[in-house]
């Protein structure tokens, strides 16, 4: 497979505009300006490219929702908040190939007839911010951004905006609130951002990785992109692999690759010769799969969906057979309790409740009925809130308990034995 997203990872100076252009960078723009915005949208629709931020919504379809005759400016927001535990792909993409993101932004803004793009970057990523800012400055200097993009009659300004370290600001409407200078918490929908987004204007929010696939689609055509992958899961996807694995890191693979093959051939298998116990396939929010389930799936939206989980952001966490699932879930409980924005009753109260029960179970103080209580609380948190953050804790809770219930019950009978606890990283 020819890499699309990571093709410049080995090029040492790709982050500079010279290095980028030497490897074909910004060359799609000449083709772009021969197309109409509607043609660009159609091309991206035809490619089947789906959002890589988590929800997997077709990018071209989303762009098509934007009303263009409201007289209001249209905005593009680039979601570079990357807060999902287990996910670290956007970070490497931005560090190693920042101009490719800018090229994707130029194409997308042209399609949307938008003249302003904001890159909302996670506050902790300071170096990445500097790298991107340098790339933006270079692009302005070379005329790829500004009043006449690449000499054409198209104006585009790109601004960086730093978040302040809240996971919820990765949710697109919380991101918009935060960008507007307000407290980062999700908005109720309707209205959707495509109609009422940043400053009340039509807005598209896309993930970094989504936008970085766009130049290839324009350069080679939708059909070429759609050839990669399977069915409705076209193209390539980055997986961030971490946990009990021999070769952690980001891997670009064609969608549809069997997990078993990916694990053994590319990631070097489970570390220390241990057996696989469980896998988080697409970031901490998705239901966990047992080793047995994992070995049967292919890494695409449909296959993972059929297995009862999600491809999500592609943050893959490998757990070996010595992993304590109670502790693992408690860590997630801590995270989601800490990060809930607190607007919605079920999420605000449910995350705290679950965290407290899990913390107690981890201390070995199990009460009869704890598992059923956790399942019930998780069910009550699901599908009843402003954003899906609440589901993002409910789903792991339910799947961990359903699939590893005995560990939660044993935690009480035995007290957590040391050997069962999650291994520290070596």
């Amino acid at each position: 497979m020819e890499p699309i997203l990571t093709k410049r990872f080995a090029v040492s100076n790709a982050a500079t505009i010279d290095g980028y252009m030497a490897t074909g960078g910004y060359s799609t723009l000449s083709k772009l300006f021969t197309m109409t915005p509607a043609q660009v949208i159609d091309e991206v629709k035809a490619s089947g490219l789906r959002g890589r931020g988590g929800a997997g919504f077709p990018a071209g379809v989303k762009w098509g929702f934007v009303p263009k005759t409201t007289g209001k400016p249209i905005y593009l927001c680039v979601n570079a908040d990357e807060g999902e535990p287990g996910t670290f792909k956007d970070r490497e993409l931005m560090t190693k190939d920042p101009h490719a993101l800018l090229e994707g932004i130029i194409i997308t803004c042209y399609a949307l007839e938008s003249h302003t793009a904001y890159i909302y970057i996670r506050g902790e990523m300071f170096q990445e911010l500097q790298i991107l800012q340098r790339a933006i400055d270079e692009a302005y200097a070379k005329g790829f951004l500004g009043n006449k993009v690449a000499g054409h009659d198209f104006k585009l300004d790109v601004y960086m905006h730093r978040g302040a370290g809240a996971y919820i600001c990765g949710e697109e409407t919380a991101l918009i609130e935060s960008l507007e200078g307000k407290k980062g918490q999700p908005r109720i929908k309707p209205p959707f951002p495509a109609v009422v987004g940043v400053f009340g204007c039509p807005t598209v929010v896309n993930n970094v990785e989504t936008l970085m696939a766009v130049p290839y689609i324009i350069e080679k055509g939708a059909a070429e992109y759609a050839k990669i992958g399977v069915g409705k899961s076209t193209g390539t996807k980055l997986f961030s692999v971490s946990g009990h694995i021999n070769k952690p890191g980001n891997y670009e693979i064609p969608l549809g690759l069997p997990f078993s093959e990916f694990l053994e051939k590319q990631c070097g298998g489970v570390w220390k010769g241990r057996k696989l116990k469980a896998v988080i396939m697409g970031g901490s929010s998705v239901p966990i799969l047992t080793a047995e389930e994992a070995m049967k799936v292919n890494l695409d939206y449909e296959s993972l969906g059929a297995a009862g989980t999600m491809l999500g952001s592609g943050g893959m966490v490998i757990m070996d057979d010595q992993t304590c699932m109670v502790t693992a879930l408690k860590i997630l409980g801590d995270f989601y309790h800490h990060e809930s924005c607190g607007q919605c009753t079920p999420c605000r109260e449910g995350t705290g409740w679950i965290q407290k029960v899990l913390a107690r179970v981890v201390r070995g103080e199990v009460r009869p009925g704890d598992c059923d209580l956790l399942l019930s609380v998780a069910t009550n948190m699901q599908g009843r809130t402003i954003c899906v953050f609440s589901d993002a804790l409910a789903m792991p809770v339910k799947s961990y308990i359903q699939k590893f219930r005995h560990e939660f019950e044993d935690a009480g009978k035995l007290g957590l034995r040391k050997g069962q606890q999650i291994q520290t990283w070596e």
Partner: protein
Amino acid sequence: MPKITIDDKEFEVEAGQTVLQVCLDKGLFVPHYCYHPKLSIAGNCRMCLVEIEGRPKLEISCNTPVAEGMKVRTKSQAVVDAQKSVLEFILVNHPLDCPICDQAGECKLQDYYFQYSSVPSRFKEEKVHKPKAKPLGERVMLDDERCILCSRCVRFCDEVAGDAELCIDNRGDHSTVSTFNGQPMKNAYSINTVDICPVGALTSTDFRFNKRVWFLQKTKSVCTGCSTGCNITMDHEGGVVYRYRPRDNEAVNQCWMCDEGRVTYKYINDDRILSPLVRKEGGLERTTWENAWNQVRMLLQNYSPDQRAALLSAQLSNEDLAAWHSLVTTQWTGAAQYGTGKVVESPSEDTLLRRADKNPNSYTTRALGLKPLDLGKCKLLFVVGEASETDLHTIATKKPEVVVVISSNSSTKFEFADVVLPLATFAEQDGTFTNYQGRVQRFHKAIAPRGEAKAAWNIASHISLLEGGKIPDTARDCFDLLAKSVPAYKSLRWDELGDEGKLVD
């Protein structure tokens, strides 16, 4: 007009309405906390979830616009379960304060819990603890543990009071309502946040811990703080008024009132003149009504009608003004009548409710053509109701031979008075005021007159009788008198004023 079905009943509704608005309009109650008809939609409490056919999840009715053919269920098993669970979640960190909570008895959490849940909580962990008495401003106190974070108070300040003074700090179950930079909330409408807080989180520093609300009797009334005449519910018990709360009247005050008006009830309780007083050597002495009437009779004998005058306050009701107007103009031929009222230095004023004219009834004093005070040839002056400082000063310096003061409170300056008659406040009688718009609004008798106080129309009726006249002696008849004597009031009928009042012609 789209048609929608709610719980198997079909309704024609207006496009653009939300499902919750329709349900509430049609009397199909759906419980809700964060929704408030005058505020933007927050959609955070999740109490108003309903089932909509064809949608995979329950939807919040407060943010779901109606659509043709929509089928809504407000009582299905899924909805009932969701309501139970939302209440269970709210109670996770809610303290068991009910026995000492001011809101008990009018608390939406208590009420909904009994109606929609009534099952014991399964939460057995330690609750989050937060400050119990955090002043948000001079008039509003927050019990952070009781707050259910519905954000009504925050939205009120931002959207109605016009100053985003409140915010929600922190996040998750550590969220707390705060003021920016901890600066005290100063807006002129802050106590409304107490009214719209669905639980006992916000209390009014004026009212808290004063009374269990179920002992209070409620009487429909009107605020006398300014010429807007906000509609209020007067809460009282045992002859004491405890608080005012705004009462809905879309045409006047929507559902709000200002803080200043809110505390004007205090004069009803404090510093009252309890009996008639007459001047003896050395000062004013208590006396009986009988003696007082004798005194007044003597005065009337000593001064011919053209030597008499009445100074009538815009604080008086329509009935008071009608009775005195009639007494002066029809019985005391040649007597003069003047208007007065409360005047404050740099009065508060804004575009929401507060008006610079701090009298509830200036409209009628103007309609009766009352002129500014001019003592002229006046020898016997009746001062009826609260007069301006300027007028009191004029009277004190150019003192007529005899002054009869009719007043409710001893805080008024009346060193010059020869006779003082105790006046009942509006809380102690039935009557009407005409607000600045010309809206005649009814207030109802809440408590018995304090001491031996009497209404001004009643006093007029008595005085009239001393000389064989016949001013009516009920409020209703005095109102008719006004309708007869002022053309603009002609078509108004006491019984037809309703709860929201009627405009004069």
